[in-house]
């Protein structure tokens, strides 16, 4: 090695780095072999940083890792399957030729060897003129990603493609019409299958037929390894024909090649799909060659293909038209074409010198930016259909996007646009979200889901036709209420060679809707004006009796549709119900609809309130404004009011129910006359509160104010507040924010003369101060504007609160924490767009919670739009510091920071939640996501909100009498008989938790939850030596000198403490 490398070696960093890199490859003499390559890595990375080859260095490092993991080991595989492939090839070559015979004879002959010919629909009639024959293949070759090394290791199916070129002698000139080619092809495939049955058997394969790329016109042979563990790859045997067999002009997209009537289409209509399907058999070798040359020309081609395949797979895109019609093969072909052109003025979009990331990004940019429904031609221009994407490869005569439908193309562009935005974002690297995250889960991706278990899923041509009709009806009916309509189905599964091809796919069709939140609730749809005869007629034909002529205020007379907002069902559902019945005779039993239940559930638990703009929240808002006015105009109070800040979930529209006290924080202009002593400050505050109360009373803003006391045990935490019953019925709680407290507390913290206990108290007081007086008002302010920006944020937060409630987390997880968890779903929605329904908002929040590795990662929320990389860095540093001072996470489990609160502990410190509860939250979220995944379309939403009492050690049942009147009072200004019930129960839970903090963990829901559940700390269950510091009630144990926890005594104490609140305490038996 040269001088240079030896220098490198000296520079190369610490041994632990070397150890890590050596673990990636198990080479024996690591140091000798590794160093040069690492030197190169480093250089290239430095270069990359300088020249912008990659998004960021960390992105590149992760990508390298990913690619390393995904690149298949071809040499190993080849050696493994070579022998098998050879034997199959020999077997095929040795097959005897058959002379031409009629269809019934051919079928009979094959039936003798147990095979059913996989005729595509419609099968040939018995009396067709043409005959079936088998002749030796012109060529047998391995093609596709395996041969071209463009595959990726972990994609679900990575079959080896074996292409058999059928001899041209078998076909006649006109065989491209009326399925004749496909019939002959089916017979040919059947003959091959019959011929290699025995060989396949001995090699350990199951032999099956399947639709090639989901195309029932073109069945192919599937050789599946019999034992799943044997891990041998599946082999697909495809057919090909000579490119020149049928002239290209005959299969252009607008030619009509089906001359017989069928129920799908009329005679003379263009048969684009049919034509392209035929043409793709003729282009097998051509594309093989072109991809091969592209991969030779550009060294990062195969890596770019891996990236593309991964990206597509994560978004549910595959080659079959049912799954989008854009898979790895299409990606690869598109890349090879983009090296030749596609840009403005025919310039190539890609250059061979690009890195794989550049190729990937340029292609995504191309997909997002170039609208391909304006056709893109490589070579000569030909007439093409409109409304579908076209990339027409003139030399090979194929629209490579022929399997794409208008909806799948819209979805693809949508995804490409989102991904492009992620790649351009400088704030986060988004690597995870581009490649790692699976984003095609329908309930997370779409706002509403419709599924048709039994319709629209016939053979390819029929399904395509029917789904097109469905798409047209749905998109016309829903109009601008939706942003995207996406249809996904499944091709028919592979079937045994001994049975007939199944007529329908085993699975139905599902439709995903992305809603446009602005329009979705519109009650009246305006159609064309009455004078526009043609449009009106078409409108009427489409809508039938639902359309009615109406006169509007501006004098116009329009065809219109009126939907009901009073109905139990949403407007979207009303439209679907009507239009599906009208156009497809599909009744409500025949389709399932998912998405509205979440709104219903929220209404049920949230006092029938959905939007932040509902009167209940607005009246609290108005009351606050009024209070602010009164406070500002007080003249008896000696200090000027600087600011009255809202500091309550009621004033940021996130309270599940609009009841309870509304906290506000008052700040005076600073004055030097405040005392420096904590107790004196509290007394001064009381004096001010009394004064404010008098003043408000005398000005008539409130009838009777009273000063309330809190935090009795400490003199350094806020001790008093003013309760103001506003004339509108809203109850305010006003606290005085005195900013010098912070300075004093900070000084106490540093004061070495104070005892550790006092310093601890100061730390807690500082925490409480920041929470009450700084962060709550800030969060409230931020959320008030966010809620108006994202109308669905408020309902989503409220539903999520209900979720936490129903799992009894109220005492453990603060409201604000939940709010932050949800906000991130809205302000950092990647890899999706901002949620446009409660369902997606809620489920994505659970999803992000389930994915959050809270022990290792901070949760960072963008609240004010100021989350710069520096801020993020700062937050991460703080997080690392917290984990190193409290590695056991005794005080802090969740770390949740935002750009307006970089400290990250405001809502979670002091065991809010403790790590056990944190772990439970996380596992509940995971369980929810897995439930969602296992039954997307038939999940009962309430299952997510059901909690089991089984895991708890004891259950405290509260007296049912306490809840009898718990439904919201009709009139706010009439005091509820037991208004403080929730408060009482909370105080009780607090008391018990405080008394038994070492031995019990309590769980409780909100004020409609009639149980409190508890767990014994498992560490206390063992008997242990007597110790002065044992902080729970004990009894002498069996062994002398040992004590055990005295559970009966503790439960007795709890029962007596809760006398009058508790019905009984149920102790769960040990299993």
């Amino acid at each position, binding site marked *: 090695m040269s001088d240079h490398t030896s220098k490198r070696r000296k520079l190369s960093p610490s041994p632990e780095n070397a150890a890590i890199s050596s673990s990636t490859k198990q080479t024996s003499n690591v140091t000798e072999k590794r160093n040069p390559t690492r030197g190169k890595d480093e250089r290239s990375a430095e270069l990359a940083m300088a020249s912008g080859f990659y998004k960021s260095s960390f992105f590149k490092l992760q990508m390298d890792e990913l690619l390393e993991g995904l690149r298949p080991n071809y040499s190993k595989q080849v050696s493994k399957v070579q022998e098998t492939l050879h034997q199959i090839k020999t077997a095929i070559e040795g097959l005897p030729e058959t002379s031409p015979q009629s269809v019934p004879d051919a079928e009979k002959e094959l039936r003798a060897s147990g095979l059913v010919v996989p005729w595509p629909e419609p099968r040939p009639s018995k009396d067709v003129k043409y005959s079936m024959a088998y002749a030796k293949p012109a060529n047998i070759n391995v093609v596709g990603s395996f041969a071209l090394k463009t595959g990726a290791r972990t994609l679900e199916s990575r079959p080896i493609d074996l292409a058999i070129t059928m001899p041209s002698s078998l076909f006649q000139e006109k065989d491209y019409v009326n399925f004749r080619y496909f019939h002959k092809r089916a017979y040919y495939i059947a003959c091959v299958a019959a011929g290699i049955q025995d060989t396949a058997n001995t090699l350990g394969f199951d032999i099956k037929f399947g639709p090639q790329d989901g195309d029932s016109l073109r069945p192919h042979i599937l050789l599946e390894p019999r034992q799943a563990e044997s891990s041998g790859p599946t082999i697909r045997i495809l057919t090909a024909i000579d490119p020149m067999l049928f002239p290209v002009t005959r299969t252009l997209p607008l030619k009509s090649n089906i001359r017989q009537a069928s129920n799908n289409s009329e005679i003379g209509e263009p048969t684009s799909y049919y034509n392209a399907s035929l043409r793709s058999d003729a282009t097998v070798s051509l594309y093989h060659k072109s991809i091969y040359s592209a991969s030779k020309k550009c060294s990062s081609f195969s890596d770019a293909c891996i990236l593309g395949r991964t990206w597509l797979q994560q978004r549910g895109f595959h080659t079959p038209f049912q799954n989008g019609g854009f898979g790895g093969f299409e990606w690869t072909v598109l890349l090879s074409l983009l090296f030749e052109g596609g840009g403005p003025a025919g310039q190539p979009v890609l250059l061979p010198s690009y890195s794989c990331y550049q190729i990937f990004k340029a292609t995504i940019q191309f997909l997002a930016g170039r609208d391909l429904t304006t056709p893109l031609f490589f070579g000569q221009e030909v007439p093409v259909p409109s409304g579908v994407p076209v990339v027409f490869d003139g030399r090979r005569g194929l629209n490579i996007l022929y399997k794409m439908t208008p909806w799948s193309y819209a979805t693809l562009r949508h995804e490409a646009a989102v991904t492009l935005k992620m790649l351009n974002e400088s704030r986060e690297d988004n690597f995870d979200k581009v490649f790692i995250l699976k984003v095609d889960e329908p309930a997370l991706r779409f706002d509403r889901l419709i599924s048709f278990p039994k319709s629209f899923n016939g053979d390819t041509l029929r399904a395509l036709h029917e789904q097109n009709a469905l798409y047209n009806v749905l998109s016309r009916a829903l109009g601008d209420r939706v942003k995207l309509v996406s249809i996904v189905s499944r091709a028919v599964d592979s079937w045994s060679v001994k049975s007939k091809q199944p007529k329908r796919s085993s699975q139905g069709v599902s439709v995903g809707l992305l809603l446009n939140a602005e329009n979705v609730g519109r009650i009246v749809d305006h159609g064309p004006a009455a004078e526009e005869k043609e449009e009106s007629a078409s409108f009427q034909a489409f809508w039938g009796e639902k359309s009615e002529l109406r006169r509007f205020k501006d004098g116009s007379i329009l065809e219109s549709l009126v939907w009901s907002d009073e109905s139990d069902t949403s407007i979207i559902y009303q439209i679907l119900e009507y239009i599906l019945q009208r156009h497809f005779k599909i009744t409500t039993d025949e389709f399932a609809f998912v998405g509205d239940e979440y709104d219903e559930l929220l209404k049920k638990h949230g006092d029938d309130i959905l939007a932040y703009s509902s009167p209940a929240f607005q009246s609290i808002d108005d009351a606050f404004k009024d209070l602010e006015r009164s406070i500002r105009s007080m003249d008896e109070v000696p200090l000027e009011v600087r600011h009255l800040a809202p500091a309550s979930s009621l004033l940021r529209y996130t309270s599940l129910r609009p009841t309870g006290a509304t906290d506000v924080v008052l700040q005076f202009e600073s004055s030097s006359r405040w005392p420096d002593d904590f107790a004196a400050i509290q007394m001064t505050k009381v004096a001010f509160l*009394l004064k404010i109360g008098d003043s408000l009373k005398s000005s008539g803003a409130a009838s009777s104010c009273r000063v309330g006391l809190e935090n009795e045990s400490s003199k350094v935490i806020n001790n008093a507040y003013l309760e103001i019953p506003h004339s509108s019925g809203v109850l305010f709680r006003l606290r005085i924010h005195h900013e010098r407290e912070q300075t004093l507390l900070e000084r106490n913290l540093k004061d070495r003369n104070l005892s550790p206990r006092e310093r601890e108290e100061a730390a807690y007081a500082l925490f409480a101060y920041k929470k009450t007086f700084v962060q709550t008002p800030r969060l409230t302010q931020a959320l008030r504007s966010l809620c108006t920006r994202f109308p669905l944020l408020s309902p989503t937060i409220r539903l999520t609160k209900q979720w936490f409630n129903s799992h009894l987390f109220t005492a453990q997880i603060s409201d604000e924490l939940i709010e932050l968890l949800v906000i991130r779903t809205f302000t950092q929605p990647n890899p999706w767009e901002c949620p446009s329904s409660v369902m997606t908002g809620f489920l994505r929040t659970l999803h992000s919670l389930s994915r959050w590795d809270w022990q290792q990662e901070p949760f960072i929320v963008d609240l004010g739009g100021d989350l710069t990389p520096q801020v993020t860095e700062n937050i991460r540093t703080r997080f690392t510091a917290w984990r190193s001072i409290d590695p056991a996470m005794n005080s802090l489990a969740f770390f949740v920071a935002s750009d307006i609160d970089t400290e990250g502990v405001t809502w979670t410190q002091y065991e809010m939640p403790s790590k056990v509860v944190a772990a439970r939250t996380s596992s509940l979220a995971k369980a929810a996501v897995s439930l969602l995944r296992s039954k997307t379309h038939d999940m009962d939403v309430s299952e997510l909100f059901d909690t089991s009492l089984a895991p708890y050690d004891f259950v405290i049942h509260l007296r049912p009498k306490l809840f009898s009147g718990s439904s919201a009072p009709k009139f706010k200004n009439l005091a509820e008989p037991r208004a403080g019930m929730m408060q009482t129960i909370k105080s009780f839970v607090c008391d018990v938790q405080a008394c038994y903090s070492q031995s019990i963990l309590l769980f409780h829901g909100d004020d409609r939850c009639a149980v409190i559940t508890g767990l014994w700390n498992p560490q206390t269950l063992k008997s242990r030596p007597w110790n002065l510091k044992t902080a729970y009630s004990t009894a*002498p144990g069996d062994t002398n000198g040992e004590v055990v926890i005295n559970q009966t005594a503790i439960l007795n104490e709890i029962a007596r403490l809760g006398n009058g609140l508790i019905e009984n305490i149920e102790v769960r038996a040990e299993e």
Partner: protein
Amino acid sequence: MKSESVQVEGYTTLPLQLPTTPLFPYPATHYLYLRPHEPRIPDPDSTRSLFLVNVPIDTTEAHLRHLFGTQLAAGRVERVQFEDVQTKKRAAATTTETNLTHSKKKRKRVTADDYERYLDDINLPSIWDRKLQKSGAHAVVIFADKPSMETSLKAASKASKRGTTIIWGDGLPTDRIPALGLNRYVAHERMQYPDRGALLRTVNEFMTTFTQVSEARKREDHKRLAVPDEDGFVTVSHGPKLNSVAREEEMRELVEKQKKKAEGLEDFYRFQSREKRKERQNQLLRRFDEDKKKLAEIKARKGKIRVSFSLSLVRLVFGSGADFLYSLNDLVHDSMAFWVSFFAGRIKGSRWCPMYM
């Protein structure tokens, strides 16, 4: 029953029958541990005190008086110190209280310290009519005299040996102590909002005393300063001392202003921008190294970065898998295994690893 283990680690064990309640109808025995009080730094009271461990959470002074005075019929209790209350302050306060009221009448000169002690006792009204003890807490019971203490201990020991049933708080007049349960919370809700007049009185009294303290303090300071020190110098101090926090804040502002001023001239010289550029480059390199380390960490934690095999589940796969989540539970509240078993039903076979998308 457990009469043989009357002693645990030198403590006498006294079983107490807790009052039965229909809400939890099982007989419950509580165990109180007691021994003579032997603090590290003995005070005059400690010889006549008993040290109690594991008092019931509803213990009040009346309970303990009743227990030793009536139920055990042994010693007279003078007072009780509970764990939560800071003993020093309390003791000091009680000794000086009389002193203060006394001196107020007699002498004009009261020291600032005296005032301050008095100040400590002016509190906002309590918001609970009955406080709770933490489970397992201790208390010091100070008896009237040493023999009282000794007979009490003996009586407890005897009761324990004989298995005498003592019902906790039994026979204690109900009007002496506020009830537990709902009533206590109702009272709490009432007491949270004390009478306006009472509050005003407290505040006034406090603030008056507070002013007295600061005046006395000032006077004393002044006096002290006016006295020449051992070198014969008299320290001269100016005007009223602003409260220190305000000064701190002023200083902070000043420093910040200066900082801002200094920033103004940053790109003035060529070498400054050159250095800046260099710094940025170094930073980039450093960041790159950090990134590498970060990746290595992630790999160590989660295994290789890869997309998962299975149909719908793709994520960063944990290398060490599930154990990773269980292993952290080395401390309090270690019930992970329980959660796992609870959710195993729902999660089914997939458990932790492949749950991610």
